[in-house]
């Protein structure tokens, strides 16, 4: 019996649907099987294959942190620059390549050719070149020659603060100064990052992109004031040239906090080209060198004598008319004095007077004061290579004690001496000197802020008051440091003219002196404590004549920079009247 057309059509429909369903099921089964093969059976191998093609590991180099002065001005900054390299194995025409590169890289073509013929897979041709040079090399399109980016350290102020900042090697490692001391913080961390890329090798951004992955170095904010540093260096340079000295150094500190505002050394050097200078010039003498201080040490002795209540400022002593025999040695004064008061010993800088005060005090009583003022031990400043100075245990013979009393037989660093005077300027409180006041992360957020640190009280405020009066007298026309006087301010300070010891034969070098002046200003409410020393001045050798004028110039500039205005009562009068414009009420 024949089926009805409608039934036949229904059967056909069903067959077609079943075929479709079977095909789909077969397809799906194929997909499932293929998924199993790809995901499970060969999953690991294919995953690795894909990763090899679509992912690559890159090294993310950190940018070295910047160094700022106390007002946020850049002192050291790193900039990416290009370096030119070659792969000798891939070189097609070494001679032609060398000839083309020589004028651009400003190198001898033979030198380049020698590098290109090295049996090495990689050689540097020239590192850290300016952008125009790398652009010209890139334009040549030489096979086997490549350009890679590195960072280079720049010091935009050239010589400014070079001894303090230090410098960085070609591989970005701190080699001296703050750069060395804080290298770990400044350097940052090299990070490895796996990035996706497409079939053409173009990188694809991911959640942890380059910016996130970069672990740049921290930034440092120093206590240094750029303008004061410049003034200190400039004035010191002028002073050294005027005195025809071998060199010089200066330290400027805030006595209230122990902050170092400037640290200058002459001769100077440019840290951008540090390798062109002898090692001797690179050393920060303010912290690394110890020297016999000479008469600038006398206030320490007198402070001890006053604190022990052994002497009063008005007490007098006989100064032997310029020559004092102590056992088989004779101590001399530059000028011959009969009797002098304790204040007079400081004002006239009598060695004999200082020796007698020291002998009356005794080694056992004097030694702790010298030690407490910070001598014979590192100050703890955050500068590398700080010297301890030299202070022998107090088993001193009388002549040794006498010598130490006027600053011989003891060695101090300029920083120690400045800090000791800071204690006198700060009511007897010794502070720890420091250079880094703040550490910032790469985004500029504060990581650490350093507060002034008091190391202890050395002498009483009453002793400080008495010694300050004596030091003010030094900077009077009758004192040895009259040339340190700054118009409009009361200055307290002390001159020093020290013989230089002979390290080879013992004793002292004939005709070689270190002239110095150290003081603080304004005397009654000190804001600045400054030390200036000139090494081996020719002509005049006295601290009061060669170092004091430099002190005056630095202080005058620094007070102006800090906005500390002259005091009416201390302004010198010209022809009986004031010439300054402005009312006294507006000047403090």
């Amino acid at each position, binding site marked *: 019996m024949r089926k009805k057309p409608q039934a036949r059509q229904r059967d056909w429909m069903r067959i077609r*649907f079943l075929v479709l369903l079977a095909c789909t099921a077969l397809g799906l089964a194929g997909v499932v099987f293929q998924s199993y093969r790809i995901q499970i059976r060969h999953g690991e191998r294919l995953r690795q294959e894909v990763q090899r093609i679509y992912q690559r590991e890159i090294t993310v180099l950190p940018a070295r942190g910047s160094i700022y002065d106390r007002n946020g001005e850049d002192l050291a900054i790193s*900039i990416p620059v290009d370096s030119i390299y070659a792969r000798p194995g891939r070189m097609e025409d070494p001679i032609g390549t060398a000839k083309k590169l020589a004028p651009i890289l400003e190198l001898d073509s033979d030198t380049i050719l020698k590098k290109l013929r090295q049996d090495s897979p990689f050689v540097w041709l020239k590192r850290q070149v300016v952008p125009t040079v790398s652009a010209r090399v890139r334009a040549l399109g030489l096979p086997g020659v490549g350009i890679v980016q590195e960072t280079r350290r720049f010091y935009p*102020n050239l010589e400014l603060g070079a001894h303090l900042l230090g410098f960085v090697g070609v591989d970005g490692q701190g080699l001296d100064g703050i750069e060395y001391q804080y290298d770990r913080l400044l350097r940052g961390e090299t990070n490895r990052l796996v990035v996706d890329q497409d079939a053409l090798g173009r990188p*694809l951004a991911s959640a942890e992109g380059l910016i996130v992955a970069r672990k740049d170095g921290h930034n440092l904010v120093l206590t240094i004031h750029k303008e004061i540093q410049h003034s200190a260096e400039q004035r010191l340079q002028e002073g050294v040239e005027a005195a025809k000295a071998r060199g010089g150094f200066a330290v400027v500190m805030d006595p209230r906090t122990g902050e170092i505002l400037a640290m200058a050394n002459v001769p100077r050097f440019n840290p951008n080209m540090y390798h062109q200078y002898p090692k001797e010039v690179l050393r920060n003498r303010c912290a690394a060198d110890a020297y016999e201080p000479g008469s600038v040490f006398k206030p320490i002795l007198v402070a001890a004598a006053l604190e022990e209540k052994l002497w009063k400022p008005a007490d007098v002593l006989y100064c032997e008319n310029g020559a004092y025999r102590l056992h088989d040695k004779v101590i001399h004064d530059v000028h011959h004095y009969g009797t002098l008061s304790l204040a007079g010993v400081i004002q006239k800088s009598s060695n004999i007077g200082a020796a007698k005060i020291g002998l009356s005090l005794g080694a056992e009583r004097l030694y702790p004061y010298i030690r407490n003022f910070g001598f014979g031990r590192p100050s703890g400043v955050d500068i590398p290579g700080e010297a301890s100075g030299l202070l022998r245990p107090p088993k001193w013979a009388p002549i040794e004690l006498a010598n130490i009393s006027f600053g011989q037989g003891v060695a101090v660093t300029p920083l120690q001496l400045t800090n000791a005077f800071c204690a006198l300027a700060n009511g007897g409180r010794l502070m720890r000197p420091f250079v880094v006041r703040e550490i910032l992360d790469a985004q500029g957020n504060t990581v650490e802020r350093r507060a002034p640190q008091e190391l202890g009280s050395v002498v009483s405020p009453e002793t400080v008051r008495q010694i300050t009066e004596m030091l003010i007298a030094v900077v009077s026309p009758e004192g040895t440091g009259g040339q340190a006087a700054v118009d409009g301010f009361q200055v307290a300070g002390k001159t020093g003219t020290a013989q230089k010891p002979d390290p080879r034969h013992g004793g002292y070098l004939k005709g070689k002196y270190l002239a110095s002046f150290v003081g603080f200003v304004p005397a009654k409410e000190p804001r600045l404590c400054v030390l200036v020393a000139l090494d081996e001045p020719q002509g005049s050798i006295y601290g009061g004549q060669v170092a004091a004028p430099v002190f005056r110039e630095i202080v005058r500039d620094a007070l102006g920079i800090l906005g500390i205005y002259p005091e009416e009562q201390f302004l010198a009068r010209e022809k009986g009247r004031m010439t300054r414009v402005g009312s006294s009420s507006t000047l403090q």
Partner: protein
Amino acid sequence: MEALVLVPAKQDKAIPREIPGLFPLRLNLAHVLILLPTFVAGCLLLVWSKASVLQERYLLEEAQREQARIQMEHRTLRLTWATFTSPKALEEAARKRFHLHHPKPREVVRLP
């Protein structure tokens, strides 16, 4: 039991209105016509979203490169600025071009 089928208003009588008893689910042509486009649309959406993400990653990569370039330029400009405003350069310009000098104490005037 019969399943309802959506059919056009003018239906050809030759085409059956249902596919009876194939599965207990009672899948019929209407279901297939709805599910298949949905599946295809889902696939297209997936491909489109993947392509969009890829495109965005290219753009993000480009933006990151631009950010790095701007940061570098910023550093370079800071270096240039610091060089021009170094005390040595300023003092030289002040002395030579404008004939200025450091003020003496009596030349300092503090404005109220």
